[in-house]
């Protein structure tokens, strides 16, 4: 179990007059062995913060640490893994799912050891070990997202970042993926940064929640507390915007 810590992180894009500050001085701790929900609307910087953590976006100021050490973004062992929104895009169509998972598995395993690891991971996400030879195109959206989860787990990560992992799935599939992620966190003792625009989903998944707006972190606290008693006006606005949240219906 590990703790992921963002200290005064700032990320810019572009230069000169067109420079945009996507993340502005954000400090945030994902406590070990728990799920932190990160909510915000498009352009709030929540995804950029995640991409900065795994080295996909440049960090211009501040630091991102894992148990006090900088997150390695080079080398073959990466203790921080990420699951993306669209499993169709995040799995190479030309690689079998077994190969995609094995590619990230620890180096130095024998061929048989690798196959066993792939089988173990597939079963962990409730797929059959025999499906390792399948290509992503042969699976359903929900199954592909399970493969993406298994690939992230293959890297024996200490922390996983889940970026809108149910947004591109059909509503009837979503629940199963959310249940699976919750079970995995409880079973393996993962630390999880769960990013979503959907407050109801975050409320269900996370023990703590952080709210971002326009690159700033505006509020952070235990989920139940923030949802019941939002301190920042923007959080109140977000809560009020959830469809059906104590608002008069549009009936005449």
């Amino acid at each position: 179990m590990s703790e992921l810590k963002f200290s005064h992180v700032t990320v810019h894009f572009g230069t000169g007059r067109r420079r945009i500050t996507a993340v502005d001085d954000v400090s945030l701790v994902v406590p070990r062995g728990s799920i932190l929900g990160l909510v915000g609307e498009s352009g709030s910087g929540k995804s950029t913060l995640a991409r900065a953590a795994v080295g996909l976006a440049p960090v211009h100021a501040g630091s991102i640490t894992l148990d006090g050490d900088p997150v390695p973004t080079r080398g073959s062992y990466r203790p921080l893994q990420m699951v993306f929104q669209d499993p169709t895009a995040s799995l190479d169509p030309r690689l079998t799912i077994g190969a995609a998972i094995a590619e990230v598995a620890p180096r130095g395993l024998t061929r048989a050891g690798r196959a066993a690891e792939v089988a173990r991971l597939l079963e962990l996400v409730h797929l059959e070990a025999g499906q390792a030879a399948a290509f992503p195109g042969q699976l359903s959206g929900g199954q592909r997202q399970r493969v993406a989860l298994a690939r992230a787990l293959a890297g024996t990560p200490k922390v996983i970042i889940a970026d809108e992992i149910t947004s591109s799935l059909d509503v009837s599939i979503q629940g199963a993926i959310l249940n699976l992620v919750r079970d995995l966190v409880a079973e393996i003792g993962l630390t999880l940064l769960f990013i979503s625009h959907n407050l109801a989903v975050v409320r269900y998944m996370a023990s703590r929640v952080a709210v971002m707006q326009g690159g700033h972190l505006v509020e952070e606290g235990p989920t139940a507390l923030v949802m019941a008693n939002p301190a920042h006006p923007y959080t109140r606005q977000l809560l009020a915007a959830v469809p059906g949240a104590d608002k008069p219906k549009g009936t005449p």
Partner: protein
Amino acid sequence: MTRVQKMLGTPLARTAAVLLGLVAVLAVLAPVIWGRRAETVDMTGILAPPSAAHWAGTDGLGRDLLARVLVATRLTLLLTLEATAIGVVAGFLLGAAPFLLGRVLGRAVTWLIGMAVAFPGILLALFFAVIFGTGAASAALALGLASAPAFARLCQTLVAGVLARDFIAAAQIGGVGRFRILFRHILPNIGAPLAVNATAGAGSILLSFAGLSFLGLGVQPPAYDWGRLMMECLQSVYVYPLASLTPGLAVVLAGLAFNLTGETIAHSLGIVTMSGLRGQSRRARAASRPGSRRAGPTGPASVRTSGASDWPVVPADVELTSQDDGAAALLSVRGLRVTFPTESGWVSPVRGVSFDIAPGEAVGLVGESGSGKSLTALAVAQLIEFPGRVAADAVRFAGAELTDGTSHRHLLGTSLAMVFQDPMTSLNPTRRVGAQLAELGRAHGGLNRRAALARAVDRLEAVRIPEPARRARQYPHEFSGGMRQRAMIGLGVMLNPRLIIADEPTTALDVTVQAQVLDLLASIRRRDGVALWLISHDVSVVAAVCDRTLVMYGGRIVEDLPTARLRTAAHPYTRALVAAVPTMTTDVTAPLATIPGRPPGPGELSGCAFAPRCPLADDRCRAEEPAVVSAGAHRVACWHVAEAVR
């Protein structure tokens, strides 16, 4: 279907491939068979017209022209392949440079490629011809280098396209090395399009090579290729005008063989090509085809008594008719079906939908992607295009029967408004927003230009767009997403509509903007007494706005109920759908309810569409389409209504 079968699926592709094979065979055999004949000089029969001895006539030295054309196949083909190889290799190195060289150098290379592709290939070829001089090898080098920028641009686009995809990011995060990414992920994903484009490109290079030789810049005598033969024929054009036809025909056929082989394979594999020759219609058809569901025989289900005594049973295809013929309704739909042709026959994504919307009522339509909900909306609005087909027992709107074959343009233009999902693409990017609203006022409201524009500004204000007069003069790209959706709603209320059909109007928007747009729709409905038909995949959105909800699954409405009763719905699918989505009141300590399996795919429809995923399903569910039973305002299509309610 194997890959090869798929690639050579059309007769055109097969013809092109056979032609290409023929050229290759000729290149190997022709010099062996006709080599001597092509060199035999006959001064007694120079520039002879076609005859039995010389099918294509003879040249200035009395040599058989047809033999020379056939023999020239080898040199022409070899030079073409040489130039193509130079172009592809140089292009690949340049195109992959940004990935390998890093940002600054990569950008410089990108800029240079961008500049070079702006010049016509012939100009680049002439440029290199000046440097390398005349001759076969020089021309091959010149043409190869001249085609390099185009190949480089292609490689760059392909590499960038692969790099932008999340699986590259996932591999990087997983600690996979740079070269491994290049060989394991990038190359396999660009190999096929590159090969296909190289084939098509070889066709253009063959034609250009013929051009250079024709100008005397390519192959020099005594060697000859097709271009050189054409040049020699032109010199004797006054004696024998059509002599150049034979080598010309060879050039065109071989060029076509390369081009078409490449393009047709690209087409069948769905690969982007440099030329953009790919036909559009196929893509268009694919886009308008919602899934591929086979139309099963769906005759009227027989009337049966269900287990529950308070649910009177109505045959599936004549729902509602006994109680209510929909005469009082604003919109009344009976037995609506939408059918599309596919390669494997006709499929019906919408299979017999019936419902009513009363004046001023807000009705929601909920379903997952592929359930047919958007097609139902388009079909009601008479917007399904060829080759899709709409059939219905009745679609009555505001007293008019829309299926009577006459055009109801004015009625639909004035009384029916549509709001679509993606406000970013639903407004014309090259026309001012005000003009796009005013257009409707002029077409159906009888307004003149000035009055229509004034009305447009007034409507923009009505949908709470600040500074409406200034905004009306702006283009859509100057609006934010939420503003654009307001403008679309403003377009909807330009005249005085009686029904607004909103198809996923907030799916593309942020939550706070979504709340504002839903609020706007609700308030317009309250103020003007307009009926609202809201289509969404999100139960909570529908629940927030609508009085009544229609639930769609597998092309049919499986339940029609007051929104307030959603939590106590009768259909197992509705109940599961409501339970599977976490809300702000979900018990966070219990696991979420899940629905096993996935929505029905091709040919999976017999009996109840939900049966494969339903915990209550029995043999009857799998065999027979459930009849609709109704109790008051509540209608359900399920054989197990009583058990489900319990």
